[in-house]
């Protein structure tokens, strides 16, 4: 970029001024207040200060450049060339704020942000680069020199100025930034254990760290202190609640019996006397009653004894008759058992007789007869099987109706009617005989002697019929059933006979008949149980009467011993009555017994118990009130509600501190990445040799070498070898200018641009200054330089030695 024209209209104290600039060095010379600084600032703000700043920011940045008095805006118009194209920029700040930029023939841009965006593209380097590298104010140059001088022993600070990338104003050496962040982290987390997320060595608020407490721990302690206080206050309030609850409980308890005990204490003495008198009256009354009873009983005592004795005699008679009846009753009870046994005997005999009858009616079949019958039955069966095996088939036909008789096997003759239309067909076992009038046709099986078989069958059948007839049975099965029945009758008869023998109980039938006959003579009685109960009652009554008679007799003896006679007894009764009346009179004068009590003793017992309880409760109450007073004395100055609010605030503060701590850790990690990724490819690395070259020119070749120890400049070499710490003010100025020129070359390498210098030669001797002017002339062959000075001789020399031109000013 090359600046062609700057117009201020208005800006600061300038109402309207145009400054047309040239290529190479432009020297703007004038005394103080001439407006050099105004022009410099107009150029800067024109390029870098947007017109749409918020009010506060605008006032801060541009307020001083509004015309005084009463100016409400400032305006700058710049014309410049960039990449071969001409541009016009106009900015107005304050009232009527606007930005507009336009290149030849293209559309204007008027939106402030877009104008700024376009400008940044045209100036190529960022605002900071321009501010720190290409706009070199006198103060900045002086500061560079000051740093070189004052901090020459601090390698970290000198090194970057000479050695490379960190030589850029505004840059910081990695070690220094790392150290600063480490220091901030260390400070922030001082006495804080990041790994445990708590104070180092677990030193909480009970044993806190006393010094070097970082913000995070301080916030933690503050938070925990309030939390502890809140906990204490809550606990305190709970204790107070608990004590109060107990006090209220005890007070209610006391209140329940308060009236009773208060009244009772007033009555106690009187009631104690009443108690004694009541007991006395009760005793005297009892004694009087007893004497009166004696007076009533004594005269009739003999009569009572006589009556009881008569009653006793009658009772003895009754007992005798009961004993007799009981004896007969027991005999009748025994006879009843005998009758029952005899009944059983009769039944057993009848059952046995029935079985004997059955046995006599059943017929026995001999084993031989049964065997014979079974053999015949088998033979018959065998013969029949053989005959049935010789089966014949026959067919009889007749041309005319004819009647015939047929016999098949051993079967009976069968009549048969034949017609011409219907023949007869049939079968026969072994033999078929057909009889037609006079004619008889016999047909036999030809495989054996069928006649012999038929005869054997006939003979066996005959023999079986005879045997059955003799036995009186129709069949073999009937004979077998009769035999089984007979065997059962034999067994039953034997069993019943045994039962009968057992029922005799070792006696004969005759003996049984005699005993049964004797029973009929016994008299009628009540049951044994009834009689025994009645007898027991009578015995008890007899004993009781005997005892009562004895007691009555003893009473008479005692009365006589104690009271001598009835007159004496009467005298005693009168005396006792007098004593009793006197006691009652005394009692009437005493306080009455409260309601709900039967005796003074009961009342006093309850009163004592309640007094004891009251005393115990009052003791406890006293203790609690002491505790309550102690608690009240130690009442916290804040309530739980107040502390809860404070704790919330402290918790938020602690969270903020935690967030800052985490941010610091992230920053350190990021810085480590950035530092690690910087290295050999650093574009600033060639800066050291460039600085050395400019330094040689600026010192007229006096110093041609900068010696580094590693990356650290330790000395400069020329006719003298000097440690950097010993450099003069002028040499330092040269070194600073060399650095500035080198940086400008580096940043403007391969592109258009300009350098602004504000009186950079002030501290140089004439020879060094001329060298610097030559040097600047060389620099300006490639780039535009705006050189501000208040020294006419500097301006003149620049025109002579560096080919500088004075810009045309109008207005």
């Amino acid at each position, binding site marked *: 970029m090359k600046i062609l024209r700057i117009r201020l209209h208005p800006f600061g104290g300038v109402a309207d001024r145009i400054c047309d600039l040239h290529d190479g060095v432009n020297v703007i010379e004038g005394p103080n207040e001439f407006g050099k600084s105004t022009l410099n600032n107009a150029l800067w703000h024109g390029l870098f200060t947007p017109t749409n700043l*918020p009010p506060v920011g605008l006032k801060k940045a541009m307020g001083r450049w509004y015309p005084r008095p009463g100016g409400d805006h400032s305006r700058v118009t710049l014309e410049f060339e960039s990449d071969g194209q001409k541009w016009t920029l106009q900015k107005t700040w304050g009232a009527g704020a606007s930005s507009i930029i336009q290149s030849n023939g293209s559309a204007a841009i008027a939106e402030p942000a877009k104008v700024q965006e376009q400008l940044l593209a045209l100036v190529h380097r960022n605002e900071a680069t321009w501010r720190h590298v290409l706009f070199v104010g006198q103060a900045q140059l002086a500061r560079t020199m000051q740093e070189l001088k004052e901090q020459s022993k601090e390698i970290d600070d000198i090194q970057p100025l000479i050695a490379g990338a960190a030589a850029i104003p505004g840059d910081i050496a990695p070690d220094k930034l790392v150290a600063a962040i480490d220091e901030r982290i260390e400070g922030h987390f001082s006495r804080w254990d990041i790994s445990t997320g708590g104070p180092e060595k677990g030193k909480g608020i009970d044993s806190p760290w006393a010094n070097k407490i970082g913000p995070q721990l301080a916030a933690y302690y503050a938070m925990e202190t309030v939390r502890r206080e809140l906990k204490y206050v809550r606990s305190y309030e709970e204790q107070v609640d608990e004590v109060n609850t107990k006090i209220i409980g005890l007070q209610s308890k006391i209140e329940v019996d308060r009236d009773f005990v208060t009244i009772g204490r007033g009555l106690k003495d009187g009631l104690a006397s009443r108690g004694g008198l009541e007991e006395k009256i009760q005793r005297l009354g009892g004694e009087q009653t007893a004497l009166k009873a004696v007076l009533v009983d004594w005269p009739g005592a003999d009569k009572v004894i006589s009556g009881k004795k008569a009653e006793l005699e009658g009772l003895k008679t009754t007992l005798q008759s009961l004993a007799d009846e009981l004896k007969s009753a027991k005999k009748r009870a025994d006879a009843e058992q005998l009758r029952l046994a005899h009944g059983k005997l009769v039944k057993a005999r009848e059952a046995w007789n029935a079985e004997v009858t059955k046995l006599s009616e059943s017929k026995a079949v001999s084993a031989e007869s049964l065997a014979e019958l079974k053999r015949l039955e088998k033979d018959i069966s065998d013969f029949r099987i053989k005959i049935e095996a010789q089966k014949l088939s026959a067919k009889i036909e007749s041309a005319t109706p004819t009647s015939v008789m047929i016999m098949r096997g051993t079967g009976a003759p069968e009549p048969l009617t034949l017609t011409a239309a219907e023949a007869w067909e049939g079968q026969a076992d072994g033999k078929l005989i057909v009889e037609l009038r006079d004619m008889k046709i016999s047909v036999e099986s030809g495989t054996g002697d069928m006649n012999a078989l038929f005869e054997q069958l006939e003979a066996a059948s005959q023999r079986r019929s005879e045997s059955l007839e003799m036995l009186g049975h129709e069949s073999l099965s009937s004979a077998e059933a009769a035999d089984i029945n007979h065997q059962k009758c034999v067994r039953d008869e034997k069993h019943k006979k045994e039962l009968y023998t057992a029922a005799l109980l070792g006696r004969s039938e005759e003996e049984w008949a005699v005993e049964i006959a004797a029973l009929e003579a016994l008299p009628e009685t009540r049951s044994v149980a009834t009689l025994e109960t009645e007898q027991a009652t009578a015995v008890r009554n007899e004993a009781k009467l005997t005892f009562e008679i004895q007691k009555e007799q003893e009473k008479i003896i005692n009365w006589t011993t104690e009271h001598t006679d009835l007159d004496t007894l009467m005298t005693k009764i009168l005396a006792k009555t007098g004593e009793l009346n006197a006691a009652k009179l005394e009692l009437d004068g005493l306080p009455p017994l409260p309601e709900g009590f039967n005796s003074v003793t009961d009342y006093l017992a309850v009163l004592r118990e309640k007094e004891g309880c009251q005393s115990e409760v009052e003791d406890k109450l006293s203790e609690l009130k002491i505790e309550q007073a102690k608690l009240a004395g130690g*009442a916290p100055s804040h309530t739980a509600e107040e502390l809860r609010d404070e704790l919330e605030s402290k918790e938020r503060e602690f969270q903020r501190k935690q967030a800052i701590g985490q941010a610091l850790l992230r*920053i350190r990690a990021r810085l480590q990445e950035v530092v690690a990724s910087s290295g050999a490819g650093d*574009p600033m690395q060639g800066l050291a040799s460039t600085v050395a070259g400019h330094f040689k020119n600026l010192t007229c070749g006096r110093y041609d070498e900068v010696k580094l120890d590693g990356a650290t400049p330790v000395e400069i070499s020329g006719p003298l070898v000097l440690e950097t710490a010993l450099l003069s003010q002028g040499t330092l100025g040269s070194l600073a200018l060399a650095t500035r020129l080198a940086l400008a070359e580096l940043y403007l390498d391969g592109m258009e641009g300009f350098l602004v210098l504000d009186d950079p030669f002030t501290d140089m001797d004439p020879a060094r200054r001329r060298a610097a002017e030559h040097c600047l002339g060389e620099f300006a062959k490639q780039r535009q330089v705006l050189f501000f000075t208040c020294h006419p001789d500097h301006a003149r020399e620049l025109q002579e030695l560096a080919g500088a031109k004075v810009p045309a000013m109008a207005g």
Partner: protein
Amino acid sequence: MSLRILHTADNHLGISFAQYPDPVRDRLLEERFSALERLVATANQRDAHFLVVAGDLFDKQTVTKGQIERIVRILAVFEGEHVLVLAGNHDYYEGADNKLWRWFRNACDGTCVLPLTDPTTKEFEGDDFRVRFYACPCPSKHSKEHTIGWVADTDKESDVIHVGIAHGNVEGLGLDADQRYFNMSEEDMRGAGVHTWLLGHIHVPAPAPGTTGRPLYFMPGIHTPDSVKCSHPGHAWWIELGADGSCRHEQLTSGGVRFVRLRRSLENSTEIENLRVACESFDAPNTVLDLQLTGRLKEEELSELNQLLDGMKSRFLHLTREQDIAQVLDAAGIARRFPDGTLPNKLLHGLLADESNAGDAHLALDIIETLHS
């Protein structure tokens, strides 16, 4: 004609306001007395029969004797029948040795102020009403059990207006998760058989505005705000109860200061301007403003905000702020400060890439600038 009651509660006189500087604290302490004076004056203007304080007239048991006497002097100006002062959970009454209530009772001697420290009834008769109050004081600061149970067992005559006075949480109205504050249910209150309840404890008024008829209970809320948690201006209830069961009520505003907590996320100048407008809408000399600001702002915006807040500080009764605003440091901001290729330039660009921790770059800038200064 009907029974007229001015109902207040939770006045918390004697609260310490220890977190505030002396002049602010003095003003806030004084405001609590002033607000009470205003309530008494209102009750007198409206010819109230009773002024009922339903608990927590005092903030704590350790209120000074001087303060107690001053409070009684204020209440004693009431021209109606009685000022009925119930023991709440902050100013609980556990027995005759309670110093706070002993002093209060002594100070009340010969005045219309009547401390209600025992569960009891108080019956009064006017020209055209009979009213029986059922006092249910708190015997401790905390309790799982409410104190109104006995009211249900009391015989109630039909021609008397029955009014319960109690202090504690109402289920569903306030938060009492641990049930530590004499928790009452509506069923408990309804079961007591009174016409209505005058309650204290919850600092938010009930019933809701616009409620008509005779509410089951009234909760006036704190009479003048005491912290940023109180978002209303301080209230009391004006209640007129007819013998026929009718009820007319009106919410009164009694507070003279406001506590306001403004939470704002600021991202640009417009939002700063909105904040300014919001702040200017407050009655600044009578407002304790607590700003909780978050967000991201550019350097000049942050500067604008700080200037705004600095300017407001003297206008408000008190202004506090918790500010967690990250200064926006965008590429342009870095470019303005650090030439290309420099370590700060690289580091800040690297940090900007982590969008989830936008404040990191600003913190790093802060460290870098300390090295430059």
